[in-house]
């Protein structure tokens, strides 16, 4: 899935298409303290952008993709990436440390 939900973190990876719009919207509504990691996102569908704009949630990691970083980031609220991140609730297998984890330091390790 191009948008990976890992506890309170939604991580956008690669090509994120229109089919993600509804799940994203639902997830955001259900996750008041959601954290957004757009770092690895290379293509963001307009529908997703619209959802993110309406959600007005801070983006913790801006997209690395040049086009998105330059033109989309201004439309999105930027997050305080160095604020303490709550402990992850996920027991998912993905142990790769995302950019959010790097920003949050050692506190983001999750239960082993």
């Amino acid at each position, binding site marked *: 899935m191009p948008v990976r939900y890992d506890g309170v973190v939604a991580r956008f990876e690669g090509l994120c298409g229109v089919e993600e719009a509804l799940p994203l919207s639902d997830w955001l509504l259900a996750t008041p303290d959601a954290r957004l990691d757009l770092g690895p996102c290379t293509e*963001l569908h*307009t*529908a997703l952008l619209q959802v993110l704009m309406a959600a007005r949630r801070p983006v913790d990691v801006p997209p690395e993709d040049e086009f998105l970083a330059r033109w*989309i980031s201004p*439309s999105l609220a930027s997050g305080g990436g160095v604020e303490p991140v709550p402990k992850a609730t996920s027991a998912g297998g993905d142990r790769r440390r995302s950019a959010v984890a790097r920003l949050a330091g050692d506190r983001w390790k999750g239960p082993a």
Partner: protein
Amino acid sequence: MSELFDQFLVESRELLDGIGAGLLRLERSLEDKAAINELFRAFHTLKGGTALFDWPAFTHLVHAAEDLLASVRSGDVAATADLIDRLFAVADQSSRWIDHIAEHRGLPADAGERARVLEERLRAAPGEAAPETALPDAFGWLRDLSREEREALRAAGPSLTAVAYDPDPECFFNGDDPLALCRRIPRLVLLRVEAAEPLPDLAALDPYRCRLRFRAVSAAPAGDVAPVFRTAPDQVRVAPVPADLVGPAPAPPPAAPAPGAAAMAEAILGEQRRILALDAAPGELEGRFASVERTALNVLTALGRAAEGAAVQAAAASARAVGRPGPLANHLATLLAAVAAEATEAKLNEHAEPRAARRALRVEPERVDRLLALVGELAVAKNRLPPLVRQAEGDRALARTLREVADTIDGLSDELQNAVLRLRMLPLATVLQPLPRMVRDLAQRLGKRIDLLVGGERTEADKDVLDVLGEPLIHLVRNAVDHGIEAPERRAAAGKPEAGTIRIDARQDKDSVVIEIADDGGGIDAAAVRRKAVENGVIDAARAAALSDAEALPLILLPGVSTARAVTDVSGRGVGMDAVRTAVGLAGGRVEIASELGRGTRVRLVLPLTMVITPVMVVEAADGLFGVPTSAVAEVAKVPATDIRRVKHAESVVLRGQLIPVFRLRRLLALPDGEGGGGTVTVLVLRLDREPIGLVVDGIRDRLDAVLKPLSGVLATLRGYSGTAELSDGRLLPVINLRELL
């Protein structure tokens, strides 16, 4: 830094010269697109230069001029004489500032105020507001761009395309992704994603209805942008961006990168990094960070990257916090890499244009003179070889070898001398350049219309000759504007075109430079010249009457003869032409004048190519040798001694039916009288200004190209000599100053 500063001074002066010339061209033909483009580029580059230093007033002013030209270029503002006047005012102010900066390393205190006044004049240009209405409603947003956005647009180039894309709310169902389309806009300069109407809360949002709209600007032509939206042609509008929208920016106007600025910025940033790496006492570091930070910010502004300034400030803050230059130095390294890439790109682009990459070498004149003096000494040393060759006659093999060596050195020293003389040659453009502007201003003041045509700017002459030439040229051109060209009504009445023409032509003629100033004005009344000359006692009435018109005209070159009826503030005090004659004469040249009443006047200045080398005739008088500048000698005649007739104290001779007054060199130099022997005498016929004069000498020995050395010490008071030359046998040859002597 000081080299950059010097480079800035030199380059901005060149740019301003170019701007002056460009404005004159534009004035001649208000539709001259090439001139407009050149002017735009020149102002743009000048702005880039000023922005590298901290002179905001200068940058603002030049920027305002650039803006105005951008509007002219896009056709939104028409080029008018008035507009050209305003731009001239900016160029003049810039020149004054450059002079001030060269001396005081900064702008004068009133710079801000002056810039403001001139900017207001520029902005008052008519027609600027007109295109507002031409803008389709869909592009209203272009009017309220932020400063950064405007800056980005200006940096992107003159012809921009605006895109207003309002996707159909149902477009997601057609498989459209508007954002993906926008990503495909070529050369995207600006993209705004906006909600068409305020977005509802997430809970109320239908994620499958598109409520966003897109506003974009591309540096690509509309023809390249439109095809991107071929799946949604009804939802998009594409139009060129009117230049004036990008134009006048609120103060302080941001600067767009100038060509060449990147390279300069690279050098400056590199220097800042070096400074950071230097050892410093702990107390000094703080100040150093601040200065590096300020410089880097200025550089970014100059490059149109002011937005990146915050990162520099942050890096400087970190450096201050840790008390080490590390963070700031690292950030500079990053900037440097980015700027270097830009500089390389700029260089590549430069290659595409056929621009002369070669830089002229600037050498202090003193160094060339020193070289020339050495060459002169070499020539004298070389002249001692022939006697040695003669002494070696006893040993034939040695003599032959010596002669060969002497010949080689001879040839080489001649070539060397020529080469050094060439170094001193400059194109006449340097003295011709101020004339167009002068003619324009004078003509405007006098209410005349004058076309000035200048040809042969590339003709070269020695720097000293050019120095002499400047003043006379200005006198002559002023005369032509003031007295030559008539007022438009008079010209019309005489059946001439209302605009007069002054033509200046320079060319090389053997060893001379010839500069001709011709006008198609009223001409000089030879009768008036005669009358005035007689009134002033320059010539007696009988002789004046005997002169033909062509012979009478040169009288105008003499002191006190000027035919202008009224003394104007421009010219006509009766000293101008005399001054011209004197100056040109001192340089070993002459003035020729021809005029036809009602048709115009032509003045020709003939000057030696170089004053360093004077061709002289070596003449003999009472066993002494003297030099006479060959340029003054029209012919050499041998006449029977009895042909020289004496009337009272004055002697004369008739040559080819013309009566020529004759002087004897022996008498002029107070040498003992005596005949040259035989029944014939040698007469040099000299042509100085007007009538020929005969000079009797004992004989002619030789001709040589002499390097004249001025007389020094007590001898310097001897006005009859212009200097000395060294003969091949080491003897000194006094060279006669004919004008003083006669």
